[in-house]
């Protein structure tokens, strides 16, 4: 687990190195309402104030996505997490208009997705964003190789070329030797590798994952999560990842949007979500998380005291509390937190214990926007 967290840290550093790029996806005030005359709901402030049960009672409509805004930065893994029925799967389908949003705006690289005509939208789906599905969605009558090559076939790529490309991707996801099998002859994990390979084969700008590993056994799920981490490390591709599994979200996500009843309740890094939950719902949600594995030493740090600037053990500011506990326990003294040559502060027993116990309030040292505004208003990250 710790390895995965370190990896995601590495990539977030990569993104900060290229700050000039705009967001890949920019979603603003997105609504998706199912039901009769759904389009009247988002504009009507009286109706939008209702909770889901009342709304269904009054109008017969269900708001799956309510006023959601966020941005996905280039190269990051953006996780949308929530329980079933929270609207996360609807949200990801709205991104490529597999489900037509009711109102709001979606931009990909600055281009308005909702204004695209059919040809342009196909172009988007063919080249820029491909999706991996919970139930795989493989064509049962085609071999693994032909399934992987399917996206290229749709684009009109010649047979020899698409097979060569597919073969390459099949190798990349570790399915070598199974090219001629039919999906029905594969295990669930292998089938999802085919699904992943199919999405990768078209070399998309963004990969969208809709609960890809929920249908898999726990051990295979962990393998697949590591596969995604590895792919991300190697290629740095932007990913939007939907999951209902908190540990999966914390493991994979650079940033996490937590959804409830169609709204984004909190948006932030795993550390922010665990360290400073925006409301009781989120707090309840993250209660059982092993905080020491998620929180960085920044949250346990206090200013340097008298005579503590002596050399000795030192930690990077992004090191996890687990590592600090180990270092402090070994030396028996407070440990310095060093950003390059500069000493930011020290961590000691008391600070670390406070984090583990959950009594530490996220200090001012925590970078970035720690809290979302009041739940219900999705946050726009600048």
């Amino acid at each position, binding site marked *: 687990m710790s390895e995965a967290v370190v990896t995601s840290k590495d990539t977030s550093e990569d993104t900060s190195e290229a700050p000039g790029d705009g967001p890949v996806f920019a979603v603003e005030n997105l609504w998706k309402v199912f039901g009769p005359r759904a389009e009247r709901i988002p504009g009507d402030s009286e109706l939008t104030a209702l909770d889901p049960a009342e709304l269904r009672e009054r109008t017969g409509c269900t708001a799956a996505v309510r006023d959601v805004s966020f941005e996905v930065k280039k190269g990051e893994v953006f996780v949308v997490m929530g329980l079933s029925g929270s609207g996360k799967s609807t949200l990801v389908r709205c991104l*490529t208009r*597999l489900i037509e949003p009711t109102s709001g705006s979606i931009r990909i690289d600055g281009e308005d997705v909702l204004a695209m005509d059919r040809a342009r*939208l*196909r*172009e*988007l*789906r*063919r*080249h820029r964003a*491909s*999706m991996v*599905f*919970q*139930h*795989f*969605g*493989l*064509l*049962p*009558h085609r071999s693994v190789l032909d399934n992987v090559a*399917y*996206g290229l*076939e*749709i*684009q009109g790529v010649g047979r020899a070329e698409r097979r060569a490309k597919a073969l390459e991707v099949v190798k990349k996801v570790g399915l070598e030797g199974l090219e001629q099998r*039919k999906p*029905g*002859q594969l295990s669930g994990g292998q089938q999802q590798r085919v*699904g992943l390979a*199919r999405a990768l084969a*078209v070399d998309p700008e963004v990969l969208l994952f809709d609960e890809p590993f929920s249908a898999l056994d726990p051990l295979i799920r962990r393998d697949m999560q590591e596969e995604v981490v590895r792919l991300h490390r190697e290629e740095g591709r932007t990913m939007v990842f939907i999951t209902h599994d908190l540990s999966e979200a914390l493991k994979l996500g650079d940033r996490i949007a937590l959804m409830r009843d169609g709204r984004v309740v909190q948006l932030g890094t795993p550390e922010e979500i665990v360290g400073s939950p925006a409301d009781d719902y989120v707090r309840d949600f993250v209660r059982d998380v092993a905080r020491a594995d998620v929180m960085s030493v920044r949250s346990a740090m206090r200013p340097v005291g008298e005579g503590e600037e002596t050399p000795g053990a030192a930690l990077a500011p992004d090191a996890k509390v687990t590592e600090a506990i180990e270092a402090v326990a070994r030396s028996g003294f407070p440990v310095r937190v060093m950003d390059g040559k500069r000493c930011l502060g020290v961590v000691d027993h008391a600070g670390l214990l406070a984090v583990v116990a959950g009594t530490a309030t996220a200090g001012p040292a925590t970078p970035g926007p720690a809290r979302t505004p009041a739940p219900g208003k999705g946050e726009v990250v600048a």
Partner: protein
Amino acid sequence: MATATASTPARDTGIGALLRHRAVGKLLLLAVAAAVVVPILNAKWASGAWPDALTVDLTEPLGRTTDWIIDNRDSHWLFTYFLGHVSNAIVLSVRGVYLVLLAAGWAGVTIGAGLIAWRVAGVKLAVMASTAFAVCGLLGMWVPTMQTLALMTVAVLASVVIGLLLGLAGGLNDRAFRILRPVLDTMQVLPAYAYLLPFALVFGMGVPAAIIATVVYAAPPMARLTALGLRGADGGVMEAVTSLGATGRQRLLSARLPLALKELLLGVNQTIMMALSMAVIASVIGAGGLGDRVYQALSTVDVGQALAAGIPIVLLAVVLDRVTGAAGERVGAHAEDNSPLRGPRGWSVAAAVTVVAALAARFADRVDWPTDWVVNIAPSVNTAKEWMVDHIYTGVPVVGGTADWAANFTEWVLNPVRDGLQGLPWWSVLLIVAALAWLIGTWQTALTAVAAMGAIGVLGVWNKSLDTLAQVLAGVAVTLVLGFATGIAASRSKRFERLLRPVLDVFQTMPQFVYLIPVVALFGIGRAPAVAAAVVYALPAVVRITTQGLRQVDAAAMESSRSLGATGWQQLRQVQLPLARPALMLALNQGVVLVLAVVVIGGLVGGGALGYDVVFGIAQGDLATGLVAGVAIVCLGLMLDRVTQPTTRREHSAKKGA
């Protein structure tokens, strides 16, 4: 009207109470309506049979229409520019196929059939297919077999193309589906026999009418299964395909159609079986071929000839069913085909061998089936039948004889039921139909059933229809008793079921027509043999549905009852039968539909009533009588189907809640 009764019962009294309550409510409402309406009807038209004042005599207008069609067949634009071309195209294509089959000769056809079966279904079925054709030749039925095969080929091709197009429309367009579905569902329950006359009227007797009737009868299952298959495509797969940016056409060709392949092949299989069934029955309107031989033989009660022509029909049915069925199963299997003859190469080898065989027979001057290879079974069969007539028809000690049984059945069952029905006041028949249909289904089905029954009265064939109805009821009763008993036995004993399965398989594939042959041999002619044929025809379906229904009863419920110490009989009565109720209702529905289909064909062997009117109408050129009887058969079919068609309670209440 239904809402008022349905909304009253209190929900907390449990489902049983609710059910009883609802049924009582319906009956009460019906009783009140009857109390008001019946005296009025009685005063106005009296009771007894359907009043003459309420009938419409269609004989004259129908006769005029017939005359007009016959007079204008060669001159009117509708015939010369449209129907004439259709008719010519059919005649030409049937003749073309027939000539090809004849040119291939018996060697070419026998070997070709074997090789096709080999390619699509494996070696075992290849041997079976070749043997079947050889037997057709041996029985001296080569030419009629080829005629039937030519008819079938054209009819099946047309049915599959039309069915596929309709199915595509229904599968891709919701509105088309909503329109198509009830039409197709209804067409499936109508007896084949009722389709014959309208086409005979328009096209005259002969091959075109037979082919078109066959297509109309055989295309619906293809359309239905195509539409259902296309609609049933896995939503997840379709979404994934869309997410990759596929166009509508790519989605259809690369995903939706391949995903529905199994249903499409099942549709082809059903279409072939129904086309064979109809192509045989259509001999009544001049289709020729094997059916015609059976028809001619039956009309002179020549059982030997009928059997000689009937066996090839059965063989054709079994071979066609097995081969197409096996092709369908292969689609789902993942078996890797690594033989050197897979794909196009195997097909070209098959084609080459067939051509060589055909040419060899031609050079050996043996194109036609050699006459010295024919075994004429008719005389010996007839001798056996004479022996039966002498020895087991009557006077067998203790058990009586088959003819005695038939006579007794007619006298003690058919006659009382018929007289009883005909003796009922006409309005009470309508009331009974309404009550039954409403109790089992919804008020819509009840309304349809009553309207259908009323139409029969209006057409002026009330008594004849009740005669047919009496035969159907007697047949259904016998079928259900035998079918449920056999089904229960099969569901309790695995060994019995294993023995039964191949028998059911063969029986279910046989065309309706051939069932008449053995019953005529056993019971002579009359109403009882017609009912017997219907029972034999309907029995396999009833047995199969019953067995499956009982087998599919929730294993946990069975286990828990066993753990409470229930005896086998208690288990059956208290757990299995109540839980299998939907299956049993379906068995009843199928039984009724199938029995009716054969009872009307029984008109050919002295069944009388509506079936006879159809035959008479065709034979005498009196299409008016035939058509009225045909419409009455359709109405009877509709009524019987609706009366026995349960709608699930949930759907029912959901509809009411809206």
